[in-house]
């Protein structure tokens, strides 16, 4: 009962939120919504214990694929977004063959190399990827109406509602997966892969499964981004963006579902709203870097550990 009330209040607050913001803040809110999906999918990937540095490039695969599906084939935008997500998942599946021969640090570097290769291919091949300048004039989401609300996608608020709904559904699916026997198996693979194997679990298959699903959601995030900003290039998905994702996850903490989302929201608010308003334009990366260092030094288990201490012990899974 209490949870239902909190849920409804939260939903209402999220619906009302953009109306108290300036236009540029509304745009940031759209990016934030997309990034929440990205970072939540990243946590799904890390559930089996492997940390990838190629996740943002996989997001880019979804963005490029969706943009090209509309540009070249003239597909309906929502359909091409879904196909973009599937493409990202398929690319991840292909990459899993070399990458899951590695573990730990080697996986980290291997995923980084694989991602950089994809980015260089975008740069090298002007046709169809547009080379270093990338793709421009990507079709926007077509306007539509659901009776009581007209979606006009020149307005960030409309796109926020659209992306927010998509992201909410995705989060719900990811939450269901984690709190299911499949999710329990992911955790088992992470904590003791040998014992998991002895229980008949095909460890590599489960690592691949987490990687592919997470990549699909990241690809969808990329597609949502591409059709909002209308232009993407190889540098939109470079390692600096990956560093941001990594930071959100670590500052927020990865032990809980909401930890990375919390990290993403808090750091985005700090970075885009507080520091921008205070006029620290050039100093923002400096303060951001300092926040990263301070949080890893003094809050190694992330912001979520503070919340957990306030709320009490966590409930059991499965």
């Amino acid at each position, binding site marked *: 009962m209490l949870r239902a009330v909190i849920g409804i209040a939260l939903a209402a607050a999220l619906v009302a939120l953009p109306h108290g913001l300036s236009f540029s803040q509304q745009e940031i809110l759209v990016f934030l919504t997309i990034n929440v999906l990205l970072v939540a999918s990243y946590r799904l990937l890390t559930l089996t214990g492997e940390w990838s540095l190629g996740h943002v490039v996989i997001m880019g695969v979804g963005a490029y694929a969706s943009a090209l599906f509309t540009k070249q084939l003239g597909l309906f935008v929502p359909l091409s977004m879904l196909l973009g997500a599937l493409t990202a998942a398929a690319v991840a599946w292909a990459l899993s063959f070399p990458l899951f021969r590695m573990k730990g640090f080697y996986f980290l570097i291997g995923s980084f190399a694989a991602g950089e290769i994809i980015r260089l291919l975008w740069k090298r091949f002007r046709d169809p990827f547009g080379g270093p300048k990338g793709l421009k004039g990507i079709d926007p989401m077509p306007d539509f109406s659901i009776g009581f609300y007209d979606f006009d996608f020149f307005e960030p608020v409309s796109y926020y509602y659209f992306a927010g709904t998509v992201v909410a559904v995705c989060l719900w*699916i990811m939450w*269901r*997966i984690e709190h*299911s*026997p*499949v*999710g*329990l*198996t992911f*955790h*088992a693979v992470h*904590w*003791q892969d*040998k*014992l*998991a*194997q*002895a*229980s*008949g*679990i*095909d*460890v590599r298959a489960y690592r691949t*499964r987490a990687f592919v*699903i997470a990549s699909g959601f990241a690809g969808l995030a990329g597609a949502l981004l591409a059709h909002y900003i209308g232009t993407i290039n190889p540098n939109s998905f470079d390692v600096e963006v990956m560093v941001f994702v990594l930071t959100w996850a670590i500052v927020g903490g990865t032990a809980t579902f909401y930890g990375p989302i919390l990290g993403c929201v808090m750091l985005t608010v700090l970075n885009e709203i507080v520091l921008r308003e205070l006029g620290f334009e050039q100093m923002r990366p400096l303060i951001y870097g300092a926040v990263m260092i301070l949080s890893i030094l003094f809050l190694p288990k992330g912001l979520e550990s503070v919340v957990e201490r306030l709320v009490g012990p966590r409930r*059991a*899974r*499965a």
Partner: protein
Amino acid sequence: MSPILEVDGLTMRFGGLTAVDGLSFSVAEGVIHGLIGPNGAGKTTTFNAISGFYRPSGGEIRLRGQVISGQPMHEVARRGLVRTFQHSTLFAELTVLENAVVGTHMVHRPNLLAAVTGSDRAARAEARERARAALDFFGLAGQENERAGDLAHGHQRALGMAVAYAAGPQIVLLDEPFTGMNPEETRAMMVLMEKLRDSGVTILIVEHDMHAIMGLCERITCMSFGKLLAEGAPREIREHPDVIEAYLGGTHHAA
């Protein structure tokens, strides 16, 4: 009775070192079988080769006549041979019940789509029931919501066996299950093993301390320097001159 597990000419080489050299023995169904030997005899290597952790350099391992050597560990497990690990290898961060539920993986294979739609509710309930039954079997019924890493040492060992039992194995391999246990815990563990055997599961125990398992095993295989030394009933093994020599001779300390 036909053997459930046959080891046939097993050889394991690491670089220039031959750890196991043409070892052959078989385990009859429904017994507790011991594999013993002094330090460095190659017991643990043999154990790892049987469970699929290592790929043998030579020879064959058969489970009910089916070749399992060379298969990865999860495939071996799926055919009914489940191993435990030395010490307290558990999913320490998960609860006791969750540990046992992971053990039911082969019986109730998780399904991704059903997990999202929620149509696997019945399967989940069955998996939990099965896991609870396994915990009950090993006397852990009251502790299912504790974190596995927080359990007492003896209970962690019991949980390790419960996880294996939840998988519904035909034969269980136990890796030095008495190491680090006090006499009381050892006795309790022996009772559990006999109970497990009586439920129809064949058991193969690898143990360094031969006295510990003399009273427990129906049959014992003793190896030394990677080769079969003697095989027989506990009394025969205890009195076998080669076994006495292997355990007392050289620099090996008497166990």
